[in-house]
């Protein structure tokens, strides 16, 4: 109780004392009283709350153990993180004057008491809040108003050098305390947990390699489909990825898994395929290459199977369709079979007997009684089939004498065929009738034709699709090509512009096809030639040379005329106008022998008053300056000035 009373008392005292200086400060220095007031308010509150919670030090210790927030520091910060001194390996070792006597570590936010002792802010406030109002070093009376932030010491401490805390992991940096935080954020040796949630914790320098190369939870790229996948699921992915090259188990060809499926399904000649009559009972499985042969050999057998199936179908139909409303009223129960069937029945019996006698196959072992018992049912089924077919065919073209009808009838009424259908395991082909063989071959051919057509159709669809895609691609490529062409033209003009700029006023103009151009000039088709523009310096004037191959005005027909024209350049705005300087125009002598060369050279000085030297108003100044009679045409053509049908003109322009 004594402690509690003390605490309250101190708070009251504190409230009275602290408000005054803050208020004064507000009036004198600060312009925003609320802002300043907020501080002492928090300060005061925290102090009160501490008095409430911390009635005794023992109780507080208990609370801290339970993870309750620790008492607030004066500025209202929560002291959750360790705020006692810096525990680092200082280099050189820490001077004891920077050691907090309470935590024995390097002072953090040092406070100095009026008795001249320094402590970490956290340590000294915690000490004073323990209701101990004496200096921890010399026991003089002390309270929170007698301690002050020691910014001098703080600045010195922040300048102290220390070994990086990751020294033990290999970092050899010696850093100033104030730079520690920024260093730690980039320290190569700082231990960082793997961001991909694997349990690894490793130095920052190894993190990249770990994430990319060794983390068990890293992403890897599938070598085949280039998808990003978890390493752990790579094996599974490789078993599913449609782009993994896989060997065909039949013909050893290597294809992507996706294509392989189609290959096995439709193409591979060595693939084991089921007979097309599989559903009907032919359980043969042979290589695709042999399937045609199989079908050819076993056509009879297949036909029987079909027969059996059809019969079964009708039996089902019969059971489904109620007796009273039967669409086939004439098809009664097997007992009421028409007399014609009885006749067939007899024939069947006869043939069976003959078969039994002639054939020593397993048929002998068959219980003939069972077989004969089944006959009426079979016949009945056949009859139903026949009637059904008639019913269906009649509306279109019912002709009972037609070959097709005959064939069907014959096949269906063939007792041996039926017999075979009953016992489809029987391997020995019974005697065949020519018609049925014929029909089976035809059916088969038809089937194969239909299949081929279907296959062709499918391919055609695929190809037309491909064609469309290719066309789309082509048009996009053409579009790109156009873009590139434009770009190339731009670049070309840029290059020539750069060339023009970098000639430094020394411009050589090679006029090719001289004779043709001369003819054109003489005929009057094209009397004037302009050279590409060039600059006097990189950021200089832009000019071009104008040439009249047949002369102008008074020189027409006798002399070659040569002029300089100023052009609008990029830097006209800051150049000096009118242009002042020297221009030398030369027609180069291309004589093989250097010593005999006699270039025709004329130098002119710019005359500022002339329109030719004013700032160009048009793309090319209309007025030029030069010589109408630069050189006699006879001289040009009778000497070495034209060589390989080319004339070379050199212009040298030097600005003042």
């Amino acid at each position, binding site marked *: 109780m004594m402690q509690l009373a003390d605490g309250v008392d101190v708070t009251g005292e504190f409230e009275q004392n602290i408000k005054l200086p803050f208020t004064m400060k507000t009036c004198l220095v600060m312009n925003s009283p609320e802002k300043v007031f907020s501080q002492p308010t928090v300060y005061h509150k925290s102090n009160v709350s501490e008095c409430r919670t911390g009635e005794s030090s023992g109780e507080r*210790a208990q609370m801290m153990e339970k993870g309750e927030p620790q008492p607030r520091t004066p500025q209202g910060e929560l002291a959750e993180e360790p705020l006692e001194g810096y525990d680092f390996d200082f280099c050189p070792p820490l001077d004891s004057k920077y050691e907090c006597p309470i935590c024995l570590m390097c002072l953090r936010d040092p406070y100095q008491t009026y008795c001249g002792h320094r402590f970490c802010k956290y340590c000294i406030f915690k000490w004073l809040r*323990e209701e*101990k109002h004496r*200096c*921890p070093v010399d026991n003089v009376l002390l309270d929170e108003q007698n301690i002050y932030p020691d910014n001098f010491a703080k600045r010195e401490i922040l300048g102290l050098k220390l070994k990086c805390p990751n020294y033990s992991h290999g970092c050899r940096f010696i850093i100033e305390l104030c730079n520690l935080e920024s260093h730690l954020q980039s320290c190569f040796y700082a231990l960082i947990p793997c961001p991909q949630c694997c349990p690894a914790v490793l130095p920052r320098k190894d993190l990249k390699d770990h994430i990319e190369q060794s983390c068990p939870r890293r992403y890897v790229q599938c070598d085949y489909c280039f998808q990003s996948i978890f390493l752990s699921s790579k094996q599974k992915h490789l078993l599913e990825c449609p782009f993994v090259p896989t060997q065909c188990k039949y013909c050893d060809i290597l294809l992507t898994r996706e294509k392989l499926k189609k290959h096995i399904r439709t193409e591979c000649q060595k693939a084991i395929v089921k007979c097309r009559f599989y559903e009907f009972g032919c359980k043969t499985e042979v290589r695709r290459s042999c399937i045609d042969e199989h079908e050819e050999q076993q056509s009879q057998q297949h036909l029987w199977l079909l027969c059996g199936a059809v019969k079964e179908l009708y039996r089902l139909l019969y059971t489904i369709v109620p007796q009273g409303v039967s669409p086939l009223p004439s098809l009664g129960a097997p007992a009421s079979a028409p007399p014609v069937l009885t006749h067939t029945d007899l024939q069947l019996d006869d043939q069976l007997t003959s078969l039994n006698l002639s054939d020593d196959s397993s048929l002998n072992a068959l219980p003939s009684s069972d077989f004969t018992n089944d006959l009426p049912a079979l016949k009945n089924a056949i009859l139903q089939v026949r009637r059904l077919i008639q019913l269906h065919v009649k509306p279109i073209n019912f002709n009972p004498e037609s070959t097709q009808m005959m064939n069907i009838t014959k096949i269906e009424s063939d007792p041996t065929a039926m017999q075979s259908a009953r016992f489809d395991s029987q391997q020995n082909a019974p005697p065949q009738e020519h018609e049925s063989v014929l029909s089976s071959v035809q059916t088969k051919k038809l089937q194969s034709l239909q299949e081929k057509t279907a296959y062709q159709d499918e391919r055609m669809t695929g190809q037309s699709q491909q064609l469309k895609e290719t066309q789309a691609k082509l048009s996009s490529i053409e579009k790109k090509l156009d873009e590139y062409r434009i770009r190339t033209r731009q670049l070309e003009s840029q290059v020539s512009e750069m060339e023009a700029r970098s000639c430094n006023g020394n411009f050589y103009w090679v006029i090719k096809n001289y004779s043709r151009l001369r003819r054109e000039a003489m005929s009057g088709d094209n009397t004037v030639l302009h050279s590409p523009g060039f600059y006097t310096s990189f950021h200089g004037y832009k000019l071009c040379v104008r040439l009249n191959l047949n002369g102008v005005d008074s020189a027409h027909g006798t002399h070659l005329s040569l002029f300089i024209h100023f052009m609008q350049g990029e830097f006209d705005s800051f150049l000096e106008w009118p242009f002042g300087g020297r221009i030398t125009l030369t027609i180069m002598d291309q004589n093989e022998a250097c010593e005999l060369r006699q270039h025709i050279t004329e130098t002119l000085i710019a005359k500022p008053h002339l329109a030719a030297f004013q700032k160009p108003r048009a793309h090319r100044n209309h007025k030029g300056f030069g010589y109408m009679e630069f050189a006699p045409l006879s001289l040009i053509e009778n000497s070495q000035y034209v060589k390989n049908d080319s004339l070379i003109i050199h212009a040298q322009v030097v600005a003042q």
Partner: protein
Amino acid sequence: MANIAVARIKREFKEVVKSEEVKSFEISVELTNDTYTELKGEIAGPPDTPYEGGKYQLEIKIPETYPFNPPKVRFITKIWHPNISSVTGAICLDILKDQWAAAMTLRTVLISLQALLGAAEPDDPQDAVVAKQYKENRAMFEKTARHWAYAYAGASNRDPDLIEKLKQAVSMGFEENRARTALSTCNWDVERAAEQLLS
């Protein structure tokens, strides 16, 4: 244990181990568990005192709130001193109570205790019997204290007279430690001691 307490004890432990006093065998400290919550200290009896030549072991318990609260220290080795309980070893020393200051360390505590052995405070006693003897019969106190140092703290200063008296008491059938305490309390009067032991 709170981070700050552990961190500090570790540092202090290093400080004690490196200190001059350890080098001259005046004090020492060792860990008794890995968590730094309990330590064992030892101080040498200061010269020119009845305790000279003795080695006194101390139990040191570090509270969670260390260094804001003092460590709990007790004599393990039995000692005859006005400010230390002859029965429990409990110490009456202001710095271990209300005069504790956070700047004090294990080293300063051990040195203070050593100083206490040389400068008893009979007016603020822990053991009233010893304090009374100290004040009323200083010679007897010193004799007794020396004997205890010999008997428990390994001091070499034996007093044949007291040993003889102790033997008498033991021969009467009393346990040696009890007999010694009783004799010490009764200023080594064997009869009174026997009476006290029997009552």
